[in-house]
């Protein structure tokens, strides 16, 4: 399971990097979504997976390995929510930019870098 997920994380990072380098702003944002999901999976995965065990148990005496670590789950949950909010903001900004300038091409964004 770890290996499958690790491959998935790698594929998502590759796809995300590719999309971030595209010229369209929308594709750039799709790339960010890929990267964000890859990172969330990486955080979840790096703490180690404990399959089929609950994160919270009533009896406090259980040893490690018998319960899943709740912390990475909580971290990922928070990170997913934050990532979702930021993605929505990015899309709204892209929409506003498109309404104002009528372009979706990142190569047109040169005005603020000029002298």
């Amino acid at each position, binding site marked *: 399971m770890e290996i499958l997920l690790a491959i998935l994380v790698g594929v998502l990072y590759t796809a995300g990097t590719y999309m971030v380098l595209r010229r369209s702003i929308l594709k750039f944002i799709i790339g960010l979504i890929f990267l964000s999901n890859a990172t969330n999976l990486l955080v979840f995965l790096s703490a180690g997976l404990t399959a089929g065990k609950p994160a919270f148990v009533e009896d406090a005496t259980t040893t490690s390995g018998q319960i899943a670590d709740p912390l990475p789950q909580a971290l990922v949950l928070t990170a997913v929510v934050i990532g979702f909010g930021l993605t929505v903001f*990015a899309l709204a900004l892209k929409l506003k930019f498109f309404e104002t300038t009528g372009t979706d091409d990142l190569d047109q964004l040169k005005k603020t870098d000029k002298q």
Partner: protein
Amino acid sequence: MTAIVLPILVPFLFILAFIAIKSHRIAQALSIIGSSILLVLSLYLFFQVKDQGILTLNMGGWKAPMGITLVIDYFSALMLVVTAVIGLAITIYTLYYLPGQHQHTRFYVFFFALMMGVNGAFTTGDVFNLYVWFEVILISSFILIIIGHSKAQLEGGIKYMALNLIGSLLFLAGLGLLYGKTGTLNMAHLAEILRTDPQSTLINSSTALFFIAFGIKAAVFPLFFWLPASYHTPNITVTALFAGLLTKVGVYALIRFFTLFFVQDQSFWLSTMAVIAGLTMVIGGMAASAHYDIRRILSYHIISQIGYMIMGLAIFTPLAIAGAIFFMLHNMIAKTNTFLVAGVIHRSQGSFHLKEVGGLLKQNPLLAILFIIPAFALVGVPPLSGFFPKFMLIKAGIEAQDYLIVAAAVITAMFTLYSKIKIWNQAFLKKDPSSSQLNIRKSLWVPHLIPLIILALVSVFLGLFAATIFDYTMAAAQQLIDPSDYIHHVLNNQ
């Protein structure tokens, strides 16, 4: 110490209030009350730290490595005080310098959200909590930068958003790997584990990710391109706020992480930082000399000054770290002040471009004095605030025999002087060019200059009482170099 939570809680309550309030007048009054409360609070906390040493608070009653801990040591306390001073100056500035659409209570909502995020980042003792505060800062700064929806702002906003989002993803990835390796995210607990752990190679993957993430935040040499592309687009009040606070949060995180727990393979990381610091300084300084828009000159200037702070961290002696902290205190105040002066120039002359403004020395001698103070402070003229930290950094560099970085620092001081003289010659000494006579000019009154006067007085104060400030920054540096006190306070606090 339950009071530690107040620098976060108070802005939060004000955010709620500003969502409910519709009237501009009440909102303006309330914002000044809010930032005054924050200033009093941060001064109170600073004196508590001075009396009692490091303060900690376990949120929700969960004991140290498990729950989120808030920690205030000298370094955090000093940063909180300066943040509050800047916040107060900016809220007074908004009374006169926010045009139409900005004067919505919305501005204050996100202003206090930003203050909450910055205060949270300075007080937290937990890596994931720091990530959350970074996101709070990020989302509120996204909105502040595009308030007004002009073309340039939207374009600058996209550039700002793009690089900063990637930076925060790298932060999260580094954090996940760090948790996987150590099983904790409490900074003191991490320090306890990593300072005794011999396996440095495994940690380096996290270290690299954190270094790049904070490097993007702090706008160091190869990663700074979002800053000059976006900082000159929003309203000058917003730019001044960002210039004072945002990049310094990145520098704060770098100093905190690389003194507290990323101490393995230190020689490699510190020499990398020294190279980056030198390049940041020189390239930022050179780029600043090439521009004619005041805001762009000052934006590149932020970058070159970040180099000095990283230089202090790279030399890594108590004197150098103290110099870096003193430099941060001075730079946050003086940098914000120069941007506020730029805003006043724009108000009285209708332009930010140096070729279109002029004759301000005759029109408004008080403004000239108020420009000279932060400009001389940034150049490093004694007895203003910039001289002493630069002296400390260069002395520490010579003692550590890092002559190249010292040379870079001295050369950059020349660039700084050059760009300040350029602004002085063009905006203040030169005759008023006739083209801008057509613009509608607004007259200036002394009340308009109050925030500038406050910050200029703080700059003078930091210079005149440098010995006292030096003692505080030295104490902060000692706490950072030898974190056993920090670890003990956090982990044994009941």
